[in-house]
């Protein structure tokens, strides 16, 4: 039985390493191709479509005015931009701060709606209510802490205009504004940079697969209408809507020059709650879409489902099993110093255990290498401090993922057994 676990672990880690190698190769191809094409800010946007920018905000008095001001100052024809801020069940001064901003001379004539909402449904509910007031051909969503860069919307739409019939949505890149706050935010920043500059680019370059990140993206209004809006039962509405878009034969394109910011959790407890919600939400989406693997769905959606299922289930189980084997053998070896007769339950014939260690070492090495490729691509971030954090983060920050995934999965099972309704948890903000 223990031999089966060992071989399962080795093969599973190989597949994870293969996936990492393929994605990294795609990312390198993307980076070198992008470096050959100069960045062009669209000069004439008169033929560009109208856009309704939606910003859901629940108790965001700290950050909302800055974000909305950034949006109002975007480099995009003002008459083509409608801004709808949803003050969703706010008990603080979010709405008051917005009204003060709207009364400024510079913004008085702008198409700027403040929607004070007391309904249910969390972020999805807020977006669905705003959608009823939206007049734009495209909907753009920013989180309340996004503070998009001046050309972010222009770059998103520029990408959409490359293939307007095929691209149902376009997403940009998000940067951590508080990345240097502490060790946790430094690790989150490395993860964010790696996911965006390696995973997103690799998947897009090789397979034209993209996933909406929840903020800093645009989506066709007509497509959202056809889908029926955002799923108010989903706790990760961005992943859920991504699969809906793919199912309809539309692509989610990447516009890496479109940048916005996000504030990352600075406390471990806040981080764990946020990530548990994301994991649980993604488990739901995987379970809801796993049927595509066995039906006549497009290869792209099958690959996307497989990618998520492998990351959240398969590789997780393989890492847990291999960690158990490692730790058990280490513990038994220590005990054997005092009680020589004791024998570990994981005794293997031949050198297979050595190859498990080699597979693990390759996985660790490519983990660090991916991070450092991403850092090299993000000007100014490839330094000694970040290299050290990348080396250390596997043994610290990344191990949290195991705890989060197990807890999220347990919570999901308990919800199903006791028919509990999932509660949408809002990430706490910091000054």
């Amino acid at each position, binding site marked *: 039985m223990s031999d089966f676990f060992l*071989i399962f672990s080795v093969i599973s880690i190989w597949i994870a390493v293969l996936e990492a*190698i393929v994605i990294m*190769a795609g990312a*390198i191809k993307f980076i070198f191709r992008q470096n050959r094409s100069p960045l062009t800010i669209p000069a004439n946007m008169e033929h560009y479509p109208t856009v309704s920018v939606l910003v859901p905000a629940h108790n965001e008095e700290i950050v909302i005015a800055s974000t909305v001001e950034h949006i109002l100052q975007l480099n995009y024809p003002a008459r083509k931009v409608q801004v709808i801020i949803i003050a969703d069940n706010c008990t603080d001064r979010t709405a008051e701060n917005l009204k003060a901003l709207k009364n400024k001379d510079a913004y008085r004539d702008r198409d700027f709606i403040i929607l004070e909402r007391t309904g249910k449904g969390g972020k999805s509910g807020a977006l669905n209510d705003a959608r009823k007031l939206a007049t734009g051909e495209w909907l753009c969503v920013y989180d309340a802490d996004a503070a998009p860069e001046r050309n972010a919307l222009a770059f998103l739409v520029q990408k959409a205009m490359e293939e307007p019939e095929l691209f149902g949505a376009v997403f940009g890149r998000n940067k951590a504004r508080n990345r240097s706050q502490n060790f946790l935010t430094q690790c989150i920043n490395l993860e964010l940079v790696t996911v965006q500059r390696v995973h997103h680019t690799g998947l897009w370059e090789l397979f034209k697969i993209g996933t909406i990140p929840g903020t800093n993206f645009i989506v066709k209004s007509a497509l959202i209408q056809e889908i029926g809006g955002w799923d108010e039962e989903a706790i990760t509405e961005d992943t859920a809507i991504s699969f809906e878009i793919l199912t309809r034969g539309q692509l989610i394109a990447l516009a890496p020059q479109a940048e916005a910011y996000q504030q990352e959790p600075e406390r471990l407890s806040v981080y764990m709650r946020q990530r548990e919600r994301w994991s649980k939400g993604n488990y739901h989406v995987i379970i809801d879409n796993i049927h595509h693997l066995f039906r006549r769905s497009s290869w792209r959606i099958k690959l996307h489902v497989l990618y998520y299922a492998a990351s959240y289930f398969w590789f997780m189980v393989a890492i847990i099993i291999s960690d158990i084997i490692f730790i058990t053998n280490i513990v038994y070896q220590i005990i054997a110093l005092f009680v020589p007769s004791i024998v570990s339950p994981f005794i293997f014939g031949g*050198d297979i255990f050595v190859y498990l260690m*080699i597979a693990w070492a390759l996985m660790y090495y490519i983990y660090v290498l991916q991070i450092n*490729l991403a850092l090299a691509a993000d000007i100014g971030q490839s330094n000694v401090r970040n290299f050290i954090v990348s080396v250390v983060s596997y043994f610290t920050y990344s191990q949290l993922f195991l705890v989060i995934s197990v807890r999220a999965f347990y919570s999901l099972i308990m919800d199903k057994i006791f028919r509990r309704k999932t509660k949408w948890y809002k990430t706490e903000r910091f000054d």
Partner: protein
Amino acid sequence: MIDYRWFIILCIIVSSLFTLAVIILTIFTLVFRARVIQKYDRGKPHV
């Protein structure tokens, strides 16, 4: 005892191929990093 020689051979082949791939990716990463530093960094410390 089960004979795992076939699996050991598979391990050697797969590990060798992966190691080669990783070496190539490392070279690309270092070359790219060197180009970026040459083009953009001016030796100033970055936070």
